[in-house]
């Protein structure tokens, strides 16, 4: 695979919840149009880490970040940078589907654009359809776009959230265990989607499912107790990892 440019990079990122030091000195690179999987045992800091990438970590009261995160070469934590502008460029899908309860399916997908000032109905319609198609949800909802977003099934809601995130065309998409609550069919749909999206979007995906990481990711980073143990090509992590802790985890000896 030809090396693409680095779109996102962390330099010695540390994250804290009050006094709890949840992420220690993580330095990582994410290349354009790749999928990077974050794996590691529960509580090792995967969610915390990806939330430092779009400045969502600081939304937790008492939480704080140190270090640098470079998006296209410039530090998103530089004083004066507006987190809103960062979050428009780095979208996020959460572990638990969280459609806006008061909004229709259409408005859920259009929300990001509408609330950023896009009002042209034709543009919105086009974007909503394209995003729902990308999220493999269009056929299931095209006849009930006015129904509440929360009236969908769990798997559909998660794909709705993906469509919502895609609607603002972020160059980077963070996904925190997007399939952990889904059935195998929905999971397969989302995995397929991730591999297709790669052409347009750089994806960072947290997963507990080792097969999933192996199936869809180009690179895999292994986290343990707040540290990034190693990051390499997925094929190498799953065949001959350098660190014995990674090997132990992958072969199921702990975690």
């Amino acid at each position: 695979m030809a090396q693409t440019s680095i779109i996102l990079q962390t330099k010695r990122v540390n994250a804290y919840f009050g006094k709890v030091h949840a992420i220690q000195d993580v330095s990582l690179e994410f290349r354009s149009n790749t999928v990077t999987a974050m794996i590691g045992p529960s509580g090792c800091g995967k969610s915390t880490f990806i939330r430092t990438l779009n400045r969502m970590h600081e939304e937790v009261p008492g939480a704080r970040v140190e270090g640098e995160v470079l998006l296209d070469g410039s530090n998103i934590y530089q004083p004066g940078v507006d987190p809103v502008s960062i979050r428009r460029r780095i979208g996020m899908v959460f572990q638990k589907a969280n459609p806006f309860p008061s909004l229709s399916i259409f408005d859920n997908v259009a929300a990001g654009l509408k609330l950023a000032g896009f009002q042209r109905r034709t543009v919105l319609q086009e974007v909503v359809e394209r995003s729902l198609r990308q999220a493999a949800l269009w056929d299931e909802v095209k006849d009930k776009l006015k129904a509440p977003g929360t009236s969908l099934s769990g798997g559909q809601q998660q794909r709705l959230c993906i469509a919502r995130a895609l609607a603002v065309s972020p160059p980077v998409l963070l996904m925190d265990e997007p399939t952990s609550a889904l059935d195998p069919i929905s999971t397969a749909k989302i995995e397929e989607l991730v591999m297709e999206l790669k052409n347009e979007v750089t994806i960072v995906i947290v997963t507990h499912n080792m097969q999933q990481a192996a199936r869809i990711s180009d690179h895999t980073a292994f986290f343990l107790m707040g540290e990034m143990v190693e990051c390499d090509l997925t094929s190498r992590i799953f065949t001959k990892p350098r660190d014995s802790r990674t090997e132990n985890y992958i072969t199921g000896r702990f975690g």
Partner: protein
Amino acid sequence: MNIRNQLAANDGRRRLKNQIMCAFLFLAAIVAIAPLVSVFVYVVQRGYQAMSWDFFTQLPAAVGSSGGGMANAITGTMVLVALASLIGVPVGICGGLYLSEFGANSKIASTLRFGVDILASVPSIIVGLFAYAVVVMPMKRPSALAGGFALAILMIPTVARTSEALLKLVPVHIREAGLALGIPRWKVIIFIVLRGSMGAIITGIMLGIARAAGETAPLLLTAAGSQHWSHGLDQPIASLPVQIYTFAISPYDEWQKQAWAGAFVLVLFVFVLNIGTRLIIKRPTIAKD
């Protein structure tokens, strides 16, 4: 005897105890609700007898002559409630928004929250005195404005605290979804969080209005009363509670009958407001978590 047998042996006694407790709680509930029901039935009975079409269209009759109505007091109450809502609803909602979204855990917010709670339990006559001092005295006469102001102060705590409580019910992950989409915080709060709880917040507003509509003491001091149509917002204005009060303590049979009719209308108003709100909000708009 092993534990399983022991438990089985206790079963009968346990069931009996259970039944006795249930009966007891049922009785307690009846005792609690009985006065409410009897007041309601009594007011409806007495008030209905005195009810007539004139009651809604005529001004109060002079002493001695029969008939007349409370048209001015009914519209007066509506005007007062509208004035109060005009001030009380926006201030209350904004206060609730501040407490739940912006102040959250700050010192100022907890002080404010405490203040609002105190305000909610201040006797309404004190609120009336306050409005008397700051509105009636400078204007040199009781007025609809002063009455609306006093009622607004009474409404604010209800509206603010209900709004705060309902906004807090909106789960964090909904807010995060909005923020992660690159929507500025204030827009997330107004267009997603507030919008999602609006249905429920309206209930809070209705309860505030229902409370304000029945207040008498502060109105005696601020809006006074009137046997005529209102001549303007800076003039005294009639209201149902004050009219009921005036007529009920009078020695005249005709007036006392009218007071019952007024009570009936007031109860009906509060009742309809409650039922109406419940119908508007058929189901909670905050979706299952």
